[in-house]
């Protein structure tokens, strides 16, 4: 750690860990409900569980992004954070708004729009919170001694993340228009500007971990985020096939979303090449594992499994089935969850001074969670394919098909248990670091042997 103000990242990472744990609990509630054991129905009906599960995901990932930015921007700009007290205020307001939102879902205080369930009054608080965050980051960037490409790409990603929240705050009477604008937020987030953030964090990690020349890494960063927007913006069309939009979206969405995996493939090749070119002696093996798995699993989950159901002829049958859940789980895990775990694994030893970066629990966390999530993806795939054939192709009633998929949810729960054990190891490691400390300032020359 170069600057004492970077320690603020710890707060955000700890919040992420807490929310991730809760997200898993709600995942289990839904898995059991699908199997026929909806025992908490009176208190937490399925629609409350799903709203909570999805929003906890969004909030813990964004909290992780914010922590990452608070760690990376001072480091890249070579200056202390602009204001630590304001960053603390921003943290606590984020935590409070998050908790109120999640509690509200349990008493029906929501908007009922998938991924954007947070009710309007809280939306404004979220907006103020994010503006405060951006002010702190931008002020730090501008007062810094240098402004690197990596820092700019990361910051631009965060600025666009905030701007794109706005189209989701307008109410429309026509559900088709509502859905159209909802995807402006959700799609342009996860298949657009979040990939800028991902690219920024990944290149920071690759510069630090492999020691490859910054100019080379940042050149390819531009190419990859360029490919992302080239394919991803018009790729939004794959949400507009069957929701009341004009039919040209079938063609445009089909072509451009078929190109979307290229951006993820680019990310994979980029990371693997930098790893191969780079020095392999960096001691933080866990950070390296998570960085590489982010680059690889995001291609499998977001790229390939997205492609599996994105073409209009396939999507006509798979749209609105568990196939989407299959893709969604591995995509979010590979691209964004793993990324946040990677930056945590990299920065925690530097913030706390405790050198936990190649231990047994850390490797168990890595393998259990990844294997568990792959198992969950396969269970969703089996359930989804069965649902498509029974309901959409053979024409059975929804619940007839649902009865037949119960066994797959049993498998899902087994795999989710493996996943949870992995996350348990990760969180155990996280807390064994203890709190960040000023003693860790410039205490880790071995982390940057390659930058000289």
């Amino acid at each position, binding site marked *: 750690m170069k600057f004492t103000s970077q320690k603020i990242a710890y707060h955000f990472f700890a919040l992420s860990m807490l929310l991730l744990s809760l997200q898993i609990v709600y995942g289990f509630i*839904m898995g059991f409900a699908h199997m026929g054991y909806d025992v908490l129905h009176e208190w937490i009906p399925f629609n409350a569980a799903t*709203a909570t599960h999805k929003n906890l995901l969004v909030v813990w990932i964004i909290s992780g992004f914010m922590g990452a930015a608070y760690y990376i921007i001072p480091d890249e700009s070579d200056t202390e954070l602009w204001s630590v007290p304001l960053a603390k205020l921003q943290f606590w307001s984020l935590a409070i708004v998050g908790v109120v939102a999640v509690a509200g879902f349990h008493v029906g205080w929501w908007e009922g729009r998938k991924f954007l369930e947070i009710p309007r009054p809280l939306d404004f608080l979220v907006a103020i919170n994010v503006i405060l965050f951006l002010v702190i980051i931008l002020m730090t960037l501008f007062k810094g001694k240098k402004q690197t490409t990596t820092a700019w790409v990361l910051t631009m990603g965060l600025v666009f993340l905030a701007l794109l929240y706005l189209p989701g705050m307008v109410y429309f009477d026509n559900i088709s228009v509502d859905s159209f604008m909802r995807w402006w937020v959700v799609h342009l987030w996860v298949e657009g500007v979040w990939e800028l953030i991902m690219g920024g964090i990944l290149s920071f990690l690759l510069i630090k971990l492999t020691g490859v020349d910054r100019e080379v890494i940042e050149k390819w960063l*531009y190419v990859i985020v360029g490919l992302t927007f080239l394919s991803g913006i018009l790729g939004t069309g794959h949400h507009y096939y069957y929701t009341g939009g004009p039919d040209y979206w079938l063609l445009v969405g089909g072509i451009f979303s078929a190109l979307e995996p290229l951006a993820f493939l680019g990310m994979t090749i980029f990371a693997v090449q930098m790893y191969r070119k780079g020095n392999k002696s960096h001691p933080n093996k866990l950070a390296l594992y998570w960085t590489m798995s982010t680059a690889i699993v995001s291609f499998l989950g977001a790229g390939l499994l997205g492609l599996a159901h994105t073409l209009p002829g396939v999507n006509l049958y798979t749209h*609105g089935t568990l196939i989407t859940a299959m893709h969604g789980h591995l995509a979010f895990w590979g691209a964004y969850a793993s990324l946040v775990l990677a930056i945590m694994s990299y920065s925690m030893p530097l913030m706390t001074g405790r050198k936990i970066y190649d231990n047994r629990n850390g490797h168990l966390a890595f393998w259990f969670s990844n294997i568990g999530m792959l198992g969950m993806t396969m269970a969703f795939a089996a359930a989804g394919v069965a649902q498509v054939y029974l309901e*959409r192709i053979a024409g059975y009633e929804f619940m007839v098909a649902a009865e037949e998929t119960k066994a797959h949810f049993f498998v899902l729960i087994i795999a989710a248990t493996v996943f949870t054990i992995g996350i348990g190891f990760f969180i155990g490691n996280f807390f064994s670091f203890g709190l960040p400390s000023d003693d860790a300032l410039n205490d880790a020359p071995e982390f940057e042997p390659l930058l000289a």
Partner: protein
Amino acid sequence: MLTKKQAKAFFIGGTVLFFLIFVGMTVNSLTVGIPQNTNADNITDSVKHGKLLWDQNNCMGCHTIMGEGAYYAPELTRVYSRKGENYIRTVLNAKNGGWGPRGRKMVEYDFTTEEVDDIISFFEWMDNVYLNGFPAEPSIGE
């Protein structure tokens, strides 16, 4: 060989170009395509209120409509013609724990008659929305 400057130009140029195209297509969809396909003139106050109730109760937290939502309960885009008005009324008014076919429970609601009418108008309007052939007819039939 590609320079960093060229890579940056590719990123900024490509992004701006495709974003502008996307904005144009969005405007066209919102002003021409969607109003036509959804018979926007038929969206009465009752349909609007039905949609509001759909949102307020987070119906897409279990069901899908136009294929969007959660996958715990049936797709409702064509429910008006598939099940009929009386069936929908029965489901929405179910008491003693609420509707629960084959053991899968729906939340028990306390809708007024007027609210139920509005939700039904919403489904009736939805029934005629043109969705490029979704939901598909089962290709091998029952």
